[in-house]
C-alpha cells in the first residue's frame, strides 16, 4: 500500500495495521526518514529551520504503486507499505516510512532498501529548505544515485 499525506504517521500503528491477520510474517524491516537540522552538504553547518516538500500529485502515486509492485515481484513479501509526507515540515519531523514484511528476513531488508533507494531518485518530490541563509532547493546526492543503481536489472 502507498499513501501520500500531509499529516504525520505513527510507526507502531502503521506496522501493526500492516501485519494484522497475516500470521506467516516472520520479520518486518522498516526505514524512517527524518528532517535533519543540518544542511546535508558536507562541510557546511547551515541550520535548517523548516522545510517544504512539494510533489507531483498523480505521478507520485502512479510511480510509487509501480515500484511497490516491482518490489513484490522481486521479493516474497507478505505486506509492504510506503507513506510519504508533503507540505511544511520541521527538523526532526518524520518524512517517510517504508516497511516490508516477509517470512524471510533478508527479503524484507532488501525490498525495504530497494524501495527507499528508488524513492530517493525517482519519486517526484522536491525539498525546499528554509535555512539561516534563506530558502534553497535541496540537490540530488551522488550517493543516492549510486544506491539506486545497485538495483538496476
Amino acid at each position, binding site marked *: 500500500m502507498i499513501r501520500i499525506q500531509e499529516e504525520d504517521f505513527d510507526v507502531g500503528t502503521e506496522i501493526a495495521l500492516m501485519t494484522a491477520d497475516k500470521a506467516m510474517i516472520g520479520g518486518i524491516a522498516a526505514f524512517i526518514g527524518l528532517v535533519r537540522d543540518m544542511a546535508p552538504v558536507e562541510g557546511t553547518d547551515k541550520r535548517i529551520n523548516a522545510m517544504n516538500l*512539494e*510533489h507531483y500529485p498523480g505521478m507520485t502515486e502512479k*510511480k510509487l504503486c509501480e515500484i511497490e509492485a516491482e518490489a513484490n515481484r522481486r521479493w516474497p513479501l507478505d505486506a509492504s507499505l510506503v507513506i*510519504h509526507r508533503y507540505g511544511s515540515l520541521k527538523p526532526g519531523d518524520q518524512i*517517510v516510512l517504508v516497511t516490508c514484511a516477509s517470512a524471510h528476513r533478508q527479503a524484507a531488508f532488501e525490498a525495504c532498501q530497494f524501495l527507499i533507494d528508488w524513492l530517493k531518485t525517482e519519486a*517526484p*518530490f522536491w525539498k*525546499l529548505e528554509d535555512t539561516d541563509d534563506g530558502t534553497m532547493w535541496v540537490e*540530488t546526492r551522488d550517493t543516492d544515485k549510486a544506491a539506486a543503481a545497485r538495483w538496476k536489472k
Partner: protein
Amino acid sequence: MKILYFAWIRQRIGLAVEELERPPDVTTVNELINWLIGQGEGYTQAFEKRDVIRVAVNQDYVSFDHPIADDDEIAFFPPVTGG
C-alpha cells in the same frame, strides 16, 4: 496540451500549470522546450541547463526526443529529492 512545472522551474517561470496549443511543427519534448524558451525570460532561465531537467509525459519519465500529442500532460522538473 497541459504543461506542469515544479520546484525551481515553477519559480522561474512563475506558473505551476498552463494549457498551451502547440504549433504543428513542435512534435517532441526537445522541440517543445525550444519553443517555450521563445515565450519569455522566465522560460529561458528555467530551461537554461536543459541537461539537468527531467521530463514526464503522462506521468512517466521520458527522454527529450519523446513525441508529444495535443492531449498529453507534460511535466518539467529538477532532479527529485524526496525520501
